[in-house]
């Protein structure tokens, strides 16, 4: 994996985590419905697992 690919994968992973946290704050602020929040949580989960599995290193 090139370092550029790794940075892109990491960026998507962290965006997935940020999406999970940020959507919860939007519900707390009354800006987002709970149903929409559930969908964003699922999107955040897919972003994290779809990318983190490639750049988090195995134990030796």
């Amino acid at each position, binding site marked *: 994996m090139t370092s550029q690919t790794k940075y892109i994968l990491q960026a998507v992973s962290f965006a997935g985590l940020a999406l999970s946290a940020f959507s919860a704050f939007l519900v707390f602020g009354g800006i987002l419905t*709970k149903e929409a929040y559930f969908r964003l949580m699922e999107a955040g989960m897919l972003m994290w697992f779809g990318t983190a599995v490639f750049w988090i290193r195995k134990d030796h």
Partner: protein
Amino acid sequence: MNSSSKSRLIDRLDALYEYDREAVDEGKLYGWRTFIAMFSSEHIAGTEFVLGTLLVMHGVTAFDVFVGLAVGNTLAVLSWAFMCAPIAVRERLTIYWQIRKIAGPYLTIIYSGMFALILCLLAGSMVNVSTTAVTLPVNILSPNYAAGQTVPSVPWILTAIGVGAVIAVLAVLGFERLAHFAKVVAPWMPFVFVAGAIVSLRSLGVTGTGNFWQIVNEKIWTGIPRPGQIHYGFWHCVGLAWLCNIAQHMGMGDVTIFRYARKWQMGFCSAFGMFIGHYIAWICSGILCAAFVHSQLAAGVSDPNPTPGNIAMFGAGYAGIVCVLLAGWTTANPTLYRAGLAFQVATPNWRRWAVTLAAGAIMIVTACIPAILHYLDRIVAYYGLFFMPLGAFIFIDFWLFPRLGLARYYAEQKGLLMSWPAAAGWFGSFGICFLLSAKDQYQSMGWINNILPAFLANYKSDLFLQVLPAWLIAVTLYLVCSLIQQKMSPISQEQTK
């Protein structure tokens, strides 16, 4: 058991740990990041969804939770940093060999066997947690123990068998890929906990910092236990946070891990596991539990069942369900693997796969007992108090024995099969602390108060408040008995290695 079969048993146990007999080589030591990652992933388990919920059910107050858990987790971190890690980096031996040298092989076999059983039970509770997540989307109701459902339904049991079988088979096949997957899962899980809690706070009526404290005291940690639950307070929170991993820190179980640390200060890495897993996650699961119960009561459900699956679905939807499933699964697997390893000692001529499957069968049976999740906090307290004394002996043997002119590793130097001071300290400490707690907890043991001196009969204690008494009793018994033992039979020049 005749003497030859006993020696075979000891030989097998030693062979199992053959490669751990030597101290770790300087070139194989790890740095801060390894220990931070390891503690962060290991202590965010499926059971965090249960323990935070149990504190709500036991009627603690918000102060008890926020301050009590902070104090308890700080004590746990200090125990790792100042008791476990310094000995680990000086000796660089596994817990097995440390106990073997101090207590002799027989007590080490008892330790391994009992440890295997408790690991099966803990793995079972994690399977139970995962099963509550799997059954929810397919409309199979999880048992509500508090409402009197002591046996799960047949479809639920079949699901638990399926989940447990997958975990057992993966443990047999080796779990390298799963270990990697667990490492991937770990950073995501706290976000699900926290997101679910933030959304749940809104559903409870919290609108900002202005009414946060009032609402959490009125609706979450109310200070009033649910019917049928014992009332917990500040010291219970301290005790639970300190006790739940005491077998690892004061009980020295983690010398096996910290023997790979470059410095003893790496013991402080445990703070990442404690404050993410046993502080933030417990608080979040408590919030999720209360919000779920309130919403169910508002919807007219008379007996809400706050299972991990239900509260995660309520707070985070299907992402929450996946979180519960993975939290239980990824931690149950290595737990079962370790249990199989420990059981292998007592199963002559059994292959590793057969032993692991047998341990898996015990795990599945325990997963189908709802009482285990309901009393999980008590179970981890018993587990901690039972295994902690052996760690206390390692601590005393290392720091105090040379200063008192006593020989270290007396059992090894004398070639003893069992150290009677260690047996007296171990079983004496656990027995005394159990009876002092049970006399006021169980009606059938109330008679003990009649035969005790007044000051002990009036001593009202609880398992969670027994950490220091148990440690002091264990150390005192071991020290006094060792003084007698070494006075009666000192080590000769020939026996000294």
